[in-house]
């Protein structure tokens, strides 16, 4: 018993109390900022190096659904126009809002409909489906329940059965071999239900987009409620996205 108390004292107070204002390490790559500067003539360096074709020119934009937050475009840009900030609030509710341009200062989801907030505002149970996720996203989702992030305090939790869930969180590009299981799992969730896409692979296929082994029909046929960009997204990105969306303080 004494030992248990010793271990408990060692734990201290590890909880991140203010999840909205955390200073992440200086090398962390969050929301990219595009400076209001003109690109050099005919320069396509950022486009050439981007491993997921997330960048478009005229005007210069980055699609956060494709972006895997590698530092290549920032590294290759001769004018330092693209710069990754430490802003970890990246969640949006509509695909169009994933596009970052020079006018983007910050991004956030619209507040969910009154019905969603009424049903899920105080308690949201989610079933996670790994459909080709490499275990990076899965580990970050698991980390949400640890003593540091402790997402349960906001009434948001992961459950074992889709029957107990209010929605699904998909990780991975959805492989052919998981396409059917993903569908069955979603069908097993009672209405009303939501779909959250966690990570670049789930949102766009990410680095696996061109692979023949993936099958993304499910995503075309169903309405997506939240997009969580990242590779993998930081746990704080997920928490803040849900708190903003459900309009919780």
């Amino acid at each position, binding site marked *: 018993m004494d030992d248990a108390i010793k271990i408990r004292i060692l734990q201290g107070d590890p909880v991140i109390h203010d999840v909205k204002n955390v200073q992440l390490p200086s090398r962390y*790559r969050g929301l990219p900022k595009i400076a209001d500067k003109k690109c050099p003539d005919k320069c396509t360096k950022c486009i050439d190096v981007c491993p997921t074709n997330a960048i478009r020119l005229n005007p210069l934009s980055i699609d956060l659904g494709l972006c895997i937050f590698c530092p290549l475009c920032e590294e290759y840009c001769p004018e330092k126009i693209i710069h990754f900030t430490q802003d970890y609030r990246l969640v949006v509710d509509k695909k169009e809002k994933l596009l970052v341009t020079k006018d983007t200062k910050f991004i956030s989801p619209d507040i969910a409909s009154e019905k969603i907030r009424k049903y899920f505002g105080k308690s949201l149970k989610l079933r996670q489906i790994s459909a080709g996720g490499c275990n990076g996203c899965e580990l970050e989702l698991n980390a949400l329940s640890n003593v540091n992030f402790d997402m349960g305090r906001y009434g948001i939790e992961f459950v074992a059965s889709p029957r107990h869930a209010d929605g699904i969180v998909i990780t991975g590009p959805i492989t052919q071999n998981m396409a059917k299981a993903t569908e069955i799992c979603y069908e097993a969730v009672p209405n009303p239900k939501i779909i959250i896409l966690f990570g670049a692979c789930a949102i766009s296929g990410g680095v696996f987009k061109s692979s023949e082994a993936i099958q993304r029909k499910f995503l075309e046929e169903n309405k997506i409620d939240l997009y969580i960009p990242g590779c993998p997204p930081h746990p704080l990105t997920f928490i803040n996205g849900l708190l903003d969306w459900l309009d919780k303080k």
Partner: protein
Amino acid sequence: MKSLEVQNNQLFDKNSIPYLNKNEFRNSVLDLLAKGCRMISLTPVDKKEPQKIIAVLADSSSSTIHIIGGDFNGVNLEFESWANEFPQTNYFECELSENYGYFPLNHPWLRPVRKQNIILGNQPYHFFKLEGEEVHEVAVGPIHAGIIEPGHFRFQCHGEVVYNLEINLGYQHRGVENLFLQSNSDKRIILAESIAGDTTIGHAFAHCNAIESLYNTKLSLRAEIVRTIAAEIERIAMHLSGLGGISNDIGFALPASAYGRLRTLAINSLAAICGSRFGRGLFVYGGVRYDFNEEIINAVKNNLSIVQNDVSQITDYLFSSVGTLSRFEETGTVKKELAKDIGLVGLAARSSGLEEDARIQFPYSAYRYNPISMITLSTGDVFARARLRALEIEESLRFIFDQIENLPQGEIKSEINTLKTNAGVISIVEGWRGEIVHIAFTDEKGNLSNYKIKDPSFNNWYGLSLALRETGISDFPLCNKSFDLSYAGHDL
């Protein structure tokens, strides 16, 4: 016996591989297996020419890798299986058969590796089935109860006791090996980082070692040490995660949550080094992208000092509990002989008393100058696999503190030029789970002609199957977590 002998990461000429006819090929491989070599790959050198294959065998005692070619041109793709004498080859044969249409004759158990609903030897595949009174079958997955990757498990039980567990994978297959051939150099590293997200550094390490050999690039000692420090932090983080998971699976909440807190410190150290909690973006061809400065060194040291101080107390607390020991000891046992026969690698092999650690037997990068100790335990049960994690955390911490205090000066990135043509390389790295193998070949234009990856999970899933024999089915989650294998790494 003809074979090409190379060292880990040694560049060799593709044309120096001796190609033997079917029978000689079989016998030469058999000879090496009989001498105690372990198969690490069975694959064509060129995807466009699947009739010519190589068997790659590692001899841990002499740090040598043997490559034997088999030429099946003009003959049918059937060959006599080695698996009846050497069970370790059976899964490699299944993989070769599934990918390239080879057929191992008299194979003890030809089964699908990654494909679903396949036809093997003119018959659809059926799961192994136990019949008799009071036997029953339990099917689990692909989607499991927690936030974990998908896979399907079939238990054949009599009462509570498992007689056979068949593990059916492939749900995670993303076609990674093919993507390697289609991708440019920047994207290849990112792909390597995404093979198994929990082994980002392990796979990036193996990939960069392989490609740098093909570039014929030498790294600065500083870059190599930064890499090995990152690799050991990954090992610490995942071992902490494993110990937390194992504690959780026996319902012991306090150590589970305490290990979880320490894991955050370990992965936040990686975030301090390169911005990603999993080490993404750290590796570039020729070295590392981010250097250590005083601020980073202090951040890493502060975090890991807390881990060092707390982990021993938490581990003592966990392992001094009678409840823990009664669940851990003699649960999910894989004995040494069995482990050797089926070719277990890494953590699982060392827990069963096998000396298998690529950092020591096939030393690479900074491990060539700064050795790490081989730690083995003998019981091969959940206890050994959990305890070994705790011991390896201590050793990795010692290694990191040694290295980080004495970082040599130097550039962190060397220049690279072009890939050697018609060349090949075998790269072995000890990830936190065990031996990672990346094999790369180039064609006459210097493009990759084949890229073959073996995650340690490929060897070890069968170990989990056998660990479950005559074990209560309720111990499955605990046994599973004690192996903690990768689905994505197996399915690629």
